C-alpha cells in the first residue's frame, strides 16, 4: 500500500536512496546536506546497511567508490565546499566506471559563501568539476516528492550506465517539508548492475557489451585490476597509447551522450502554444511555474521547461523547441550557467535572456512574471 509522508527534501532523498537499494553511505557533515547523513545514520543500520562518517569529503568519495566495488549501492551527500573536494574521486569514478550517487545540496558560493542559504551555482561544476574528458548524469529535484522519486532514478541510472550520478539539490528543496507519496515496494522500479557470468579467462572488465561492461565486484573470482590510469579493455594501464586513450574517452563519454534521449527528463507546462518559455530547475522551477500561471491569466502565451535532468544537456530538445519559441528566459539562482547551454543548443533560432538570482534567495513569481511581460512587450 502506498504511504503518505511529510518529509523534507533531505529526508525524502535519504529514504528514496534506501528504497533504491542504497546500503552504504559515507559522508562528512556540511550544511545544508547534513540532514541526509543524519537520517542515513539512523536508518541504514535498520536496513542492514552501513553508515560511516569519514574524516573529510575526499575520504567520503573514495569510500563510496571502494564500497561500490565491494558490491554495494552507494551514496554520499555534501554541499559546495565538500563537492569541490570530491571532484578528484568523481573523476576516478568516471574513469573506472563506478556506479555511485553524489547528492550536492547547493548553497550560495563560491567558497564558504552563504552556508545556510540557497544557491544553484554548481550546475557547471556538476558536469565539469573533475579534470579531463568525462560525462556524468545530473538530476535536479524541485520538491521533496521528487527528491524521493528522482533519487531512485539516479541510482538506477548509475547502475545502468556505470557512472557517477550527481543529485543536484538545493538548500530550499532540502529544507522544505511537503507531502511525499511513497509507493508500495513492489511498485518501485529498481535496477541492479550487470555482473559478468562468463569464465574469468574470457572476461574483460572494461569491454562494453551493448554499451556497458558487466562489472565484477570484489570476491567474485575474476581478479580484476581497476586503475585510475588510462586503461584498456582488460583494465591494464596503457599510459602512452593515444589509441587506448581515445577508445576509453569515447567510451566513457559516448555511453552517456548517445543515450541522452533515454536519460532526458523534462517537465513541460503550458508549452503547446507557448511563445515565451521560462527555463528553470530545482526550487527556481517552482517560482517559474507560478509565474507562467500568472502570465496565462493575463493572456500571455508563456510556458515552462523545467529540467529534471540537466546533464547530459538536452541540446536536441532545445533546438527543436526553438522552432516555436521567440524568447527563452532562463531563471536560475546563479549568474548564468544553464543559460549558456540553452544558448549553445538553439543555434541563434531565438533570443535567450538570463534572469539571475545571486544566491541567498529564490526568484519570486512576480520577478519572473515581470520578465515574461517585458518579453511579451518586445523588450
Amino acid at each position, binding site marked *: 500500500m502506498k504511504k*503518505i509522508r*511529510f518529509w523534507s527534501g533531505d529526508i525524502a532523498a535519504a529514504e528514496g536512496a534506501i528504497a533504491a537499494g542504497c546500503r552504504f553511505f559515507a559522508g562528512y557533515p556540511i550544511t545544508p546536506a547534513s540532514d541526509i547523513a543524519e537520517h542515513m545514520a539512523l536508518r541504514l543500520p535498520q536496513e542492514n546497511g552501513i553508515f560511516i562518517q569519514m574524516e573529510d569529503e575526499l575520504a567520503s568519495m573514495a569510500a563510496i567508490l571502494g564500497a561500490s566495488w565491494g558490491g554495494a549501492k552507494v551514496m554520499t551527500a555534501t554541499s559546495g565546499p565538500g563537492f569541490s573536494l570530491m571532484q578528484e574521486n568523481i573523476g576516478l569514478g568516471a574513469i573506472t566506471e563506478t556506479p555511485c550517487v553524489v547528492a550536492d545540496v547547493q548553497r550560495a558560493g563560491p567558497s564558504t559563501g552563504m552556508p545556510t542559504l540557497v544557491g544553484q551555482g554548481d550546475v557547471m561544476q556538476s558536469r565539469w568539476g573533475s579534470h579531463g574528458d568525462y560525462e556524468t548524469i545530473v538530476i535536479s529535484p524541485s520538491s521533496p516528492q521528487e527528491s524521493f522519486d528522482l533519487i531512485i532514478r539516479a541510482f538506477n541510472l548509475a547502475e545502468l550506465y556505470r557512472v557517477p550520478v550527481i543529485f543536484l539539490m538545493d538548500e*530550499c528543496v532540502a*529544507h*522544505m517539508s*511537503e*507531502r511525499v507519496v511513497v509507493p508500495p515496494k513492489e511498485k518501485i522500479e529498481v535496477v541492479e548492475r550487470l555482473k559478468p557470468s562468463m569464465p574469468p579467462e574470457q572476461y574483460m572488465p572494461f569491454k562494453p557489451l551493448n554499451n556497458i561492461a558487466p562489472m565484477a565486484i570484489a570476491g567474485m573470482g575474476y581478479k580484476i585490476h581497476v586503475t585510475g590510469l588510462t586503461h584498456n579493455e582488460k583494465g591494464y594501464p596503457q599510459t602512452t597509447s593515444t589509441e587506448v586513450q581515445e577508445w576509453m574517452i569515447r567510451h566513457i563519454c559516448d555511453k552517456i551522450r548517445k543515450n541522452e534521449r533515454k536519460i532526458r527528463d523534462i517537465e513541460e507546462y503550458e508549452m503547446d502554444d507557448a511563445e515565451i518559455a521560462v527555463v528553470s530547475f530545482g526550487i527556481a522551477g517552482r517560482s517559474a511555474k507560478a509565474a507562467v500561471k500568472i502570465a496565462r491569466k493575463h493572456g500571455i502565451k508563456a510556458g515552462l521547461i523545467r529540467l529534471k535532468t540537466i546533464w547530459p544537456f538536452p541540446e536536441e530538445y532545445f533546438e527543436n523547441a526553438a522552432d516555436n519559441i521567440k524568447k527563452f528566459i532562463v531563471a536560475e539562482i546563479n549568474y548564468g550557467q544553464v543559460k549558456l547551454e540553452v544558448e549553445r543548443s538553439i543555434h541563434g533560432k531565438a533570443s535567450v535572456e538570463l534572469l539571475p538570482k545571486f544566491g541567498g534567495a*529564490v526568484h*519570486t513569481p512576480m520577478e519572473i512574471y515581470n520578465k515574461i511581460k517585458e518579453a511579451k512587450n518586445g523588450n
Partner: protein
Amino acid sequence: MKKEIRFSGYGGQGIILMGNIAAKAAVLYDDKNAVYTPSYGPEARGGAASSNVIIADEEIDYPYVTDIDVLVAMSQLGYEHNAPLLKDNGVLIIDKDLVKLKNGVGKVAKIDATRIAEQLGKRIVANIVMLGFFTAVTKILSYDAIKKAVLESVPAKFKELNEIALEKGYKEGKK
C-alpha cells in the same frame, strides 16, 4: 483556499516545531496541500526564530510566505518584523504577555500562552498551547488533525501534557 502562515518568536520557544506540526497536520490528517519552510531571510536573524507554512487546496508552486494571512507572534521582535507583511484582512495572534501592540488596527486574537503553559508546569509547551489557540481561531485545520500531528511529534512521556496544553489553547480560542 490558500493561507500563508508565519509563526514567529525567539530561539528556544519551539517556533520551528509549530510550523512543522501545523503543516504536517494539514498534509497527513486534513488531506490538504501544505508546505513548511524553516526560517528564511532577514526575519531569522538575531535571536529571532520563525517558521512558515502555506496550506492550500490547490497545488503550491512558490513555497515561501510573502503576504501573511495569519501571523502568530510570540515575541515583540517577531511581531514588529512581520506585522507589516500581514494582509489587510489578515489575522494576528499574539501571546499577550510577550507582545505589546503598537497600533490597534485589524483583528487581533490574544492569549497568555506562556503563562498557561507555566501553570501546566512546563513553560516549554507554550507553543502547543498556542497551536491549539491558532487552530480554534483560524479554523484552517481541524482539531483532530492538529491533535494527531502534535501527538506524533512529541516524545512519548510528554504526550499527555501536550494534549492538555493543546486542549487548553483550543478552548481559549473557542471562547
